[in-house]
């Protein structure tokens, strides 16, 4: 009997320590909770503002996270200007890159040509693959439409010595552009 009390004592001491830890953690979490979500949204809102400077409102289209070929679409927004007509769409998506997943934001005009691309997160090789996040590389996509081939070295100039990263981002943009235009066409029908 004696040592079953000991075991209970052990359980209670560890339980007590964990309780205090849990309490402290939840207190900090509740303080920082909204600040964190706000930080996460800030990166997205900032990217959206850059692509559609004159859009005033970004309406989230209810669409679950879908796998589009090798890329995955995370969120889709409609961009409206002050008098409520649609300027275009913003899609956040991720595509597997050389070092890990590349997260990017694709702006699509209402005529389904590329308005702008921003890479928000990537773990490509620093100095080589990482240059796909730079605007010189991404600006070449602006204005491209579905009938462009999106093939590296043909109509897309790759980042030197980072063909895999350039090919994966080009591929990702093509598939998401394709998906957004198809999906929006059905919605507007």
């Amino acid at each position, binding site marked *: 009997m004696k*040592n079953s009390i*000991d*075991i*209970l*004592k*052990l*359980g*209670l*001491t*560890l*339980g*007590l*320590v*964990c*309780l205090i*830890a*849990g*309490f402290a*953690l*939840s*207190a900090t*979490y*509740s303080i920082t*909770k909204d600040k964190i979500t706000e930080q996460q949204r800030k990166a997205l809102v900032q990217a959206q503002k850059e692509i559609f400077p004159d859009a005033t409102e970004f309406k989230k289209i209810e669409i679950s996270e879908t796998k589009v070929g090798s890329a995955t679409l995370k969120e889709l927004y409609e961009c409206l200007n002050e008098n409520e007509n649609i300027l275009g769409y913003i899609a956040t998506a991720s595509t597997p890159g050389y070092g890990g997943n590349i997260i990017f934001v694709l702006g699509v005009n209402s005529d389904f040509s590329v308005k702008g691309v921003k890479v928000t997160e990537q773990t490509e090789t620093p100095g080589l693959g990482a240059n796909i996040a730079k605007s010189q590389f991404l600006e070449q996509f602006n204005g491209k439409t579905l009938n462009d081939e999106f093939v590296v070295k043909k109509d897309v100039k790759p980042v030197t010595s980072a063909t895999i990263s350039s090919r994966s981002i080009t591929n990702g943009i093509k598939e998401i552009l394709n998906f957004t235009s198809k999906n929006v066409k059905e919605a507007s029908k």
Partner: protein
Amino acid sequence: MSLMQIIIFSSGIMLGLGIVFGIGLGYFAKIFRVQENPLIDEILEILPGANCGACGFSGCRSLAEGITSGKASIETCRVGGEETVKNLAKLLGVGTDNISYEKYIAIPLCKGGKSLAMKNATVKGVKTCKIANNLKLSEKICTYGCLGYGDCVLVCPFNAIKMNDEGLPEIDPSLCTGCGLCVKECPREVIEIFSYKEKVLAICKNSEKGSAVRNACRVGCITCYVCEKKCPKNAIKMVNNLPVIDIEKCDLCGICINVCPTKTLSLIKALSAKENGKK
């Protein structure tokens, strides 16, 4: 998910996990308890922990188990020195008076350094005593003497051995505990363990005779029997061409040392107590 809910749920989950794990650990510790004599850890604390194996056990932990089960007496560990034996005696409440504690050290039996031993080759590439001995790759003509590549230096857990510029190992008696690891390591068994009292020793292992030794080394023992004849106490006997000095008979008069033509014999002085403390 209001703040209150978060706090309650997190604390609740952590409390639940803590209790489950705490009881789990306690229960496991109880049913799977291994009856181990706590004395073993205490003894392990006192032992030097060099795991050198000089006591014949595979390491300090098995020696500790040996001592608790009575298989080994407390002065089995020579390496620990007096201090270990005293602490063990105190721990186990055993008297130390009947234990005569004697210090042992390792002494290299070769004087054939770079300048004294004749060479017939120069060796390039890998330099370890084991390889040199197995492949008969040695610069010196003498095949009994020290190869000088320092395997013993690496193995000594108390780093008591240093190679002098003659290329021979020098063992610091205050650091050496006589654990014998260097004896096992040396492929030519140049190093041997002796009790640490003042004595005369023949610092040579070359068991050949006369000219075979003379053109291999200037300080090798050429078996001329002078020391055996001249010793007033006839304490010296030639055993396979090397003089062995009987410690009881020898009164350290030093005649044999002066009379030896090749200066192979030398007097091993014991550090006086004062010097020993300096270590």
